[in-house]
């Protein structure tokens, strides 16, 4: 497991109040992890802080699963 993947999963678990082992790579924030629309906005805010970046709104809206978050960070920051 890459370092980025671990960091993303840790943040998802913290933000959504779920256990880290529930945060499967394919999990959807809303459907699998019980996030509401405000949670998903705050999750992106937390990712921005962790990775010291700004994710534009139009990109942020597409990040709906753990995998998409990891991919975004990998593509844009790694």
């Amino acid at each position, binding site marked *: 497991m890459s370092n980025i993947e671990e960091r993303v999963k840790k943040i998802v678990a913290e933000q959504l109040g779920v256990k880290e082992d529930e945060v499967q790579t394919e999990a959807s924030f809303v459907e699998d992890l019980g996030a*509401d629309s*405000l949670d998903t*906005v*705050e999750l992106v*805010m937390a990712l921005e802080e962790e990775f010291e970046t700004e994710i534009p709104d139009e990109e942020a809206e597409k990040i709906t699963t753990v995998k998409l978050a990891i991919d975004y960070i990998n593509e844009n920051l790694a």
Partner: protein
Amino acid sequence: MSDNKIALVTGASRGIGKAIAEHLANDGMTVIGTATSNGGAEAITAYLSALGNEGCGMRLDVADSDSVTEVIKAITERFGAPTVLVNNAGITRDNILMRMKDDEWDSVINTNLNALYRVSKACLRGMTKARWGRIVNITSVVGAMGNMGQSNYAATKAGAQGFARALARELGSRAVTVNSVAPGFIDTDMTRELPDAQRDALQGQIPLGRLGDPAEIAAVVSFLCSNAAGYVTGETIHVNGGMYMA
């Protein structure tokens, strides 16, 4: 009551905004007051300093998106993210609708209503993160009753109350409350522009028989911004000497 909260009050150089800024400063908050001119911002810094407040005045045009983004960033860097926001800045451009010009309509909508979108949105990140926030919109009795020659102003004030109710629902889960205070006729520069005859006629419609004092609005805003008001949200509190009873 305050663990050094940062409060942002727009339109704080005079009138109701100034009274609110002073009251929140006396409540122990660090207050940032905004004005559209450098002179106004300096005057705010002066009265806040006189109260021993660490806050200051800043120049902000709420009708300009870039200005809003810049100022919120500057406040956050210097003082921390505001968790108390009083949307007070407002203007009037009165005219009966049949004579109203596009710029009279547009400038009132932009300053009184579009600014709520800009300034509130810019402050939400800090509030949701803090899991605590207070937004108070200063509206007007005119938003509920209507007033001749103020279709533009009344639309923004009624709109602000609807905005508060919707935002209150969005942010309830983060303990951020959003309310409105609707002043009646308060003794400020804005009402001093009214013709004497209209002022006298108005006074006759007010059970308490006088115009209100800005401090009487500030006291209600202070309550809504306090921890004690944590269960009040989406509400409009009318402070008008009884001229309109909701």
